[in-house]
Each structure stands twice: as structure tokens, then as C-alpha cells.
């Protein structure tokens, strides 16, 4: 195994997370490492806290006041090479900066009510890019990276809402990729899509990992085993097992994991 294999981008350390108005923490003492240019899958029965954990990684929870974090999520600063706790970010511009570095794709495609081009250029414009030709270049590159350039290139000015579900989802990926994020978080990105669109997205995610570290929540065991390098099994807010995907699927060390993977519950 190459050494690079083990370079951590994000380290979740003893993380507790509590929703506002809820007495018990939803995430309990979670520990997890996200490795660079790898795909890490989060699996587990519905309601176990997968989305909650994912949404801590870009602090999107903070949109709703009253959420409480305890513990650390260290995030690699590529300039200094040091790990910095992203839970310590307070100021709005720090959070904005974090979200530009950690992108997120949702269960249902979320095209903005604007043209295809504007959807992809949106994040770039927010981050201050104004130069038209540079924008054009970045948009084209992102659409190509997200494997939707062919379908979109003749209708860049059309509303994004006219695309099919699968195309919309790839557009959303392109939109995030355009910002050149270090990490991309996917929350069940294919659960609303048909099988053909699903495999297109899976292929795309595998392509993306050359440049980007991926964390993906999925309820589809095959998808987790096909796609990911590492798998995390969660249950009732606990991380039960975290390991290489082959290990988890072939020879899990915890009985609960095995029962879940073989479909005996969940």
C-alpha cells in the first residue's frame, strides 16, 4: 500500500451532536477518519445519524440555531499542512470559506431557479470571480468533469429545471465541483433516481475521487461496496465499525455490522 493512502483529510474525534430541543445527543462519541482521495461510505439503518454526521462536516446544521457540537472535526489545511478543528469556526466568513472547501450534494437534485450556466457559475460568482472568459472556462470544465457537458452545451442559457432528474443531479455535482472543493459530501445522491441515472452518477463519483475526497451516505449496500474504499457502519448514533470496505463487507468484526450487511435488519 502506498503511503499516500493514509493521508487523512478530516478526522472526527469524540464528536457529540445534539439537535435543538432534543435532550439526548443524536451522535454519540463518533470517531472517524476521512482519507484523501478516497471514497468513504456511511451506512446504517434509517435514522441512525448518517445525515447528521455528514451535515456536521460542512456545518450546515448551523443554519438552524441551537445545535450543539462537542468534540472535534479536524480538517486539513492544505497550505500549512496542519489539521484545524472546523467546529471552532465562528464567524460567517469562516463558515462560508468552509462550505466552499466542503461541497454537498443532496438526496433530491436541487437546481436553482436559473439557467444551467448560472447554476454552475453561481458559486464561482459568489467567491468573487467576475472575469467572463474565466467563468466560461470554469463552467465548461465543471460540466465536463460532471459528465454533463454533452447534454448541456447547447442549452446553457435554458432553465436548469428543464433537465431530467439524473441530469439535474449531475448539474448539482458540476456546480459544486466548479468550486474545486477538497471534500464533497453526498447524502443519498441516487435514491431519487432511476437505475441508469444512478450508474452514471456512480461512475462520475469514481472519476471525481482523483481530485476530490468523497464522503457518501447510502442505504444501498451494493452501492457502498461498489463505490467506496472505506465504510462506516452507524447504529443509533454510534459508529459501530469503520474499516476498509472489503473488510466490512467480507469479514466484519462486529456482529451487528454483519447482521445489517446481510440484511437481517434495517
Amino acid at each position: 500500500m502506498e503511503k499516500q493512502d493514509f493521508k487523512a483529510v478530516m478526522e472526527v474525534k469524540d464528536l457529540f451532536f445534539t439537535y435543538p430541543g432534543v435532550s439526548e445527543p443524536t451522535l454519540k462519541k463518533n470517531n472517524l477518519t476521512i482519507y484523501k482521495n478516497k471514497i468513504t461510505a456511511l451506512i446504517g439503518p434509517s435514522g441512525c445519524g448518517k445525515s447528521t454526521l455528514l451535515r456536521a462536516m460542512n456545518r450546515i446544521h448551523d443554519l438552524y440555531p441551537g445545535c450543539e457540537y462537542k468534540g472535534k472535526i479536524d480538517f486539513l489545511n492544505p497550505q500549512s499542512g496542519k489539521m484545524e478543528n472546523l467546529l471552532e469556526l465562528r464567524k460567517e466568513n469562516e463558515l462560508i470559506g468552509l462550505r466552499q472547501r466542503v461541497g454537498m450534494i443532496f438526496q433530491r437534485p436541487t437546481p436553482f431557479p436559473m439557467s444551467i450556466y448560472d447554476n454552475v457559475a453561481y458559486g464561482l460568482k459568489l467567491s468573487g470571480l467576475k472575469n467572463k472568459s474565466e467563468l466560461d472556462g470554469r463552467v465548461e470544465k465543471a460540466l465536463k468533469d460532471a459528465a454533463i457537458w454533452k447534454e448541456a452545451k447547447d442549452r446553457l442559457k435554458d432553465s436548469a429545471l428543464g433537465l431530467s432528474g439524473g441530469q439535474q443531479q449531475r448539474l448539482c455535482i458540476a456546480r459544486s465541483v466548479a468550486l474545486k472543493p477538497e471534500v464533497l459530501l453526498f447524502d443519498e445522491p441516487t435514491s431519487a433516481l432511476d437505475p441508469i441515472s444512478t450508474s452514471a452518477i456512480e461512475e462520475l463519483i469514481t472519476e471525481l475521487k482523483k481530485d476530490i475526497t468523497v464522503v457518501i451516505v447510502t442505504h444501498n449496500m451494493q452501492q457502498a461496496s461498489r463505490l467506496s474504499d472505506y465504510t462506516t457502519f452507524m447504529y443509533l448514533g454510534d459508529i459501530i465499525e469503520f474499516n476498509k470496505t472489503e473488510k466490512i463487507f467480507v469479514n466484519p468484526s462486529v456482529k451487528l455490522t454483519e447482521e445489517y450487511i446481510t440484511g437481517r435488519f434495517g
Partner: protein
Amino acid sequence: MGANLFRNLSFFSATLSFFLLVGIFAVLFTYAQQSMQEFGFDFLLTEEWEADEDDEGGIFGGYIPIIGTLLSTLIAMTIATPLAMGIAIFLTEIAHDKIVKPFSIAIELLAAIPSIIYGMWGLFYFAPIVQLTIGGNGVGLLTAGIVLAIMVIPYMAAITRDSMNTTPDVLKESAYAMGATKFEVIKDVVMPYSKGGIIGSIILSLGRALGETMAVAFLIGSIMSIPKSITDPTTSIPVLLANNFAEAQDLEISSMYYLALILFVVSFAIISVAKFYFLGRNK
């Protein structure tokens, strides 16, 4: 009561709105005939409103009340729109859940207060302030416009809030997830998403303001003269009707029916556009 009778009765009731609408139009049109034949469309641009000595004829033109209606509405909308948008934004995107409820109730209560109360309050408490700070003698276009604004704000804010609330959370979250600020999310996602509803609520409020009588009646000054400045007194269609309709006769009252017809048709058009084109109530 037989099943058929019940069905027929309910059908009859359902057609009532239609007949009311047609009836109102027909009645206003009929009674306005005398004036329409006398003045035609020149009515709209004629400034005079004067009866002859013998009270039989005279010259009656709708220009002043029409202008007064349009200007007071314009002032009201100019003030109300940004404030109502602000309130809707506050209620949907800024306020904490715990604050949203009392604020929403307050806004809806504000909308429930009878318009005569706004007028009376405006006359005794707001007109003096306008007089002191801006000038004029208190009552006039500006005061009427401002109080009219205060009146339509809660109405506009409530409809705008409802349509902004239809923006799915994930859509907003995905904009935040790209590093957008709250304002950017509102401007680029929430507003475009609920555009139809927002424009609809503005137009609907415009319809309200045009037809509002009591709040304006206390405040516009009720004088048949063209305002030279924004604080000058003038009149509006509803106010002219409210104050002079019952005493008018012959050609004058026919001219008032003419004005009522204009108001009715314009309101009908505006409200229809708002409801069916923008608010998509055509379900």
C-alpha cells in the same frame, strides 16, 4: 329535501358570484349611461367637476379623483413594498422559530383592524406628524399614501411570507452549501423560486389600495383639486363616492356611477391578473 333539490340549490348558490359580478357591472354600466353619453372617454381627462346652478346638468370629469387614486396608491405601494418584503424575509429567513409565531399573529391582527380605525388614527396621530416634519396642513396625498401603506403592509407581508415559505429547505441548504450568505440565498434562491407569489402579492395589494375608502377618506383632504405638491389635499374615487354619492343627482350621480364602474373594472382586472397569472390559484 330531495337529493336533486339539494344539488340544484347548491348549484344556484355557486352561480351567485357570477351573477353578482355581472349584476354589479350591468347596474353600474346602466346608471353610468347618462354620463358616458355626455362625456365619453373625455371624462377621464376632464378636470372640472361642477354642477350648473339649476342642478340639472354641468361638467363632470373624473381626472382629479382618478389621479388622486393613482397617486395615493403609488405612494402607498412605494412605501409598503420594501417594508412588506423585509417583514416577509424576517419571518421566513431570519427570525427564530419562537419569535415567528407572535410576530405572525401581530402582523395578521394588524391586517384585521378595520380600515376606519387606520383612518381615524391617521387623522389624529399621523397627520400632525407629517405636518410638522414634512409640511402641508396634515391631510393630503402623502399622509393618505403613508397610512394606506401601513394598511396594506401586513396584507402584502402575509401573502409574500406564505409564498416564500414554499421554497424547499434543501434548495436553500444547497446554496448555503456553496458558501452563499443569507442575503444571497434570499436573492438568488428564495426570491426567484417564489417570484410568482411575490409579484402576485404586490399586485393584489395594489388592488386593495386602489379600492380602499375609509383609511383614505379621513386623510386625503377630500378636495376636488389637482395636487401641486405631495402634501397637497386632493380626492380619490372611493373617497368622492363616500362623501358625495348619496347627495348627488342626475348627471352628477351618473358620473359617480361612471367612476365606480372604472374602479370596479380596473380592480377586477388587477386582481384577476394577480390571482390567476401570478398566484396560480387556477387549480
